[in-house]
């Protein structure tokens, strides 16, 4: 498509939107050009190699973990029949409601040297410390496990949606060709689902890179912990920004990986005949194995930590839960809902620009707008603070000089700033989901619509929205849950007297009052469960809906 096309109002609007949304990241990265003295030299000769090594190992570990767990469980619950399948189908998403820093605190409380598990071991066997081996929870490996347990649902979710939407014909053909379940999985289903799996993986890995709470608590030095040390401890914003730029290199690598995996082929399903899946019936040992595998994952990622939180909550409930607590809950929920809707609208607008005006400019703009996902929330927050304060102060200066009146701060310290930070940080989530849903709608369907004389908006309403509904719902709920868990940006940008559950949980946990932090943490988890269950239902239902549409 010609370059002229890129300068039509719609793509131009996207460009402006992308510039605005990427502003926080750009503002931070702009510090790269500020000289940072000898700090950089100091870093590279002391701690930088550790940052790089640990960040890479963390990503590698989480990638392997989330792929193994996410894809396996997705395949089992979609394609195989075994006892408990219909429960696991939605329950396996539950760990998503668990913020990484909370699961880390919880497991530390249980498994640490002074926790109940090791204490019981010492009591039973009369051991002393050092008499026995026990895995060190606060370590790089521990961080990999914690992050894997709460991030595998991204891979699970997207690969399950992909498996579900695969035309049954393709799988049937595979079976008629004499392929068993294993071969069908490896040779047909997995390659077809690859774009979705990689999309899920890159979400999980970006979350890993942005994680601060877990690695900080476990004492693992990564880029994120390094950014904070350098920025605040050494007082060098420039060197911190240079570290953040280093982090962004990893992010770009991930984005390129994701695009590359998709570029090779456009997977469109040619058949419009969908039937209910005929699942592979598992029996005996295999059924038991599938059941056990899903149960272990669910227990580790959700049941155990939730029970621990519950038991702490019971201990302290009467002192912590009051009318104020209810307000925290309302604040958290309404903020998350608002941000999720806004992110969805922006994602739709951007994903369509990319489809209607394919070209470097638009796709570049969309990519740039999603950059914030892998940047730690606190870095984003500072990136939001600087331009907002600049805007406020400029307006104020103008007003003072022209009207002799001070407007004060209009945007800084308001929920506008908080919401903007959420959009910068989480737009990638809704964008990825909407986009990967959109690639499943063939271009020939658009052409068919156009031959009926549909205008673009009509194509959207009549063809795309019904077919996309699952992806849209997924995008909405993912952002909702993410915002509910978000901490650093909320903490630093919020207005006076405004608290959320995450802020409350963090404050108490950071003061090492794990038990008192439990009610707020548990409330985040519970509030997150409902959308997560909805999420699972939508995906299943959308398939049925699609069947109905296909039949008409």
């Amino acid at each position, binding site marked *: 498509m010609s370059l002229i096309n890129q300068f039509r109002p719609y793509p131009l609007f996207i460009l402006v939107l992308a510039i605005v949304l990427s502003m926080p990241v750009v503002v931070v990265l702009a510090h790269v050009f500020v000289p940072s003295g000898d700090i950089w030299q100091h*870093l590279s000769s*002391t*701690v930088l190699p550790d940052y790089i090594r640990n960040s890479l190992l963390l990503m590698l570990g989480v990638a392997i973990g989330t792929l193994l767990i996410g894809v396996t469980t997705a395949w089992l619950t979609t394609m195989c029949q075994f006892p408990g399948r219909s429960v696991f189908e939605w329950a396996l998403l539950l760990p998503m409601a668990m913020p990484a820093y909370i699961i880390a605190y919880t497991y*530390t409380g249980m498994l*640490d*040297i*002074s926790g109940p598990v*090791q*204490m019981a071991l*010492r009591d039973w066997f009369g051991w*002393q*410390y*050092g008499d026995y081996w026990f895995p060190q929870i*606060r*370590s790089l490996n521990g961080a990999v496990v914690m992050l894997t347990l709460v991030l595998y649902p991204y891979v699970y979710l997207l690969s399950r949606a992909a498996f579900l939407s695969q035309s049954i014909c393709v799988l049937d053909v595979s079976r008629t060709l004499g392929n068993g379940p294993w071969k069908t999985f490896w040779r047909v289903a997995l390659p077809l689902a690859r774009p979705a799996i990689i999309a899920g993986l890159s979400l999980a890995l970006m979350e890993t890179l942005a994680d601060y709470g877990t690695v*900080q*608590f476990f*004492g693992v030095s990564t880029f994120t912990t390094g950014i*904070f*040390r350098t920025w605040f*401890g*050494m*007082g060098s914003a420039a060197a911190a920004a240079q570290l953040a730029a280093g982090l962004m290199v990893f992010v770009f690598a991930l984005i390129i990986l994701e695009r590359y995996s998709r570029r090779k082929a456009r997977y469109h399903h040619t058949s419009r005949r969908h039937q209910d899946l005929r699942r592979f019936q598992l029996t005996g040992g295999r059924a038991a194995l599938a059941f056990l595998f899903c149960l272990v994952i669910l227990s580790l990622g959700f049941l155990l930590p939730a029970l621990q939180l519950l038991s702490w909550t019971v*201990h*302290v409930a009467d002192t912590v839960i009051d009318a104020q607590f209810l307000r925290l809950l309302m604040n958290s929920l309404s903020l998350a809902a608002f941000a999720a809707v806004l992110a969805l609208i922006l994602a739709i607008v951007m994903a369509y620009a990319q489809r209607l005006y394919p070209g470097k400019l638009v796709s570049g703009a969309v990519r740039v707008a999603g950059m914030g996902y892998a940047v730690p929330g*606190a870095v984003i*927050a*500072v990136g939001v*603070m*600087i331009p907002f*304060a*600049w805007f*406020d*102060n400029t*307006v*104020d200066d*103008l007003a003072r000089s022209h*009207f002799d009146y*001070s*407007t*004060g*701060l209009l945007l*800084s*310290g308001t929920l506008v700033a908080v919401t903007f930070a959420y959009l910068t940080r989480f737009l990638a989530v809704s964008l990825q989901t909407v986009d990967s849903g959109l690639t499943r709608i063939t271009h020939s369907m658009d052409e068919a619509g156009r031959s009926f004389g549909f205008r673009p908006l009509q194509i959207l309403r009549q063809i795309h929205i019904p077919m996309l509904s699952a992806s849209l719902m997924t995008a909405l709920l993912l952002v909702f849950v993410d915002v509910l868990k978000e901490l650093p940006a909320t*903490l*630093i940008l*919020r*207005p*006076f*007297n405004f*608290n959320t559950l995450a*802020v409350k949980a963090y*404050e*108490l946990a*950071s*003061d*090492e*009052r794990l*038990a*008192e932090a439990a009610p707020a943490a548990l409330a985040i988890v519970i509030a997150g469960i409902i959308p997560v269950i909805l999420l699972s239902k939508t995906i299943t239902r959308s398939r049925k809906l699609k069947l109905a549409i296909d039949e008409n």
Partner: protein
Amino acid sequence: MRKAGIFLSVWLGLTVLLVSGCSDDAQQEIQEVNLYSARIESLIKPLLDEFTEETGIKVNLVTGNADELLQRLQNEGRNTPADILLTTDAGRLHRAMEVDLVQPVQSDILMQRIPASYRHPDGYWFGLSLRARPIMYVKDRVDPAELSTYEALVEPRWNNRICVRSSSNVYNQSMVASMIVANGEAATEEWAKGLVANFARSPQGGDRDQISAAAAGQCDIVIANTYYLAGMLTSNDANEREAAEKIGVFWPNQADRGVHINVSGAAVIKDAKNQQNAIKLIEFLSSDTSQKWYAETNGEYPVRADIEKGELLEQWGDFLADPLDMDKLGEFNADALRLMDRAGWQ
């Protein structure tokens, strides 16, 4: 272009009308003071509520990480709504002064109540509570006679027996800064290397975690702030209480400069719009009731010598505190962090 100009002026005009309309009423009715606090909500709100009850002045609160609050103040500039910055260490108060965010305050009450070493000579900031960071030991494995100074913790007999948290933590940064002041940078770096060599495990978790690890047998010596131990002794959790009972407090360096302490404190923001209320609040935080509250609720030492420490803190006795100028902690913070990087203190 002209259209944009007209639009901007109309919009500005409307905003001005709206804002002035609102604030005229508001200013007369509500007396308030706005607080940016690095002290977490549950460790300040009860006092603020009491202040409001006593004076009728409403306190608006944002809590957060001290560094990020500083960043926010810097960006907001003269339009900041904040009147007071409250931090849990002297280093950040010093930094706020350095970047010209706070103003000197004249208050006879504060000058008279707070000892000179715990406030800025010109009134840029005031300490409100003391946080001592002594050596703690496991009572049945360490004879306190073996202990003497921070410096002596590098002796080979402590090999594989010491637990300290990460160097990312500001209390460690302040402690090392105080040692740079006392012993110089080269000697302190040697010391840090020796200390790291004696670590029982790589630094992880917070101060309470170090104490718990010692009680469970992973190490014998801990450097931690006393109020964490106090919090464990008064915990609802029997296991925590039991762990804390095993730990003794040793005041190091009593023959020379004294134990390292830090202050939590407050400063009035340069562009404070409620300056008088801000001073009233800081005065309230230095009153008898507030000072006792710090000691009883959070196990911190009152900044005033004339306030009783309470039973909990009394058990560890009196101590000589390092009289070092608190501003130095902020001044040497970056040097301390680099030094710990070089020493391999994670």
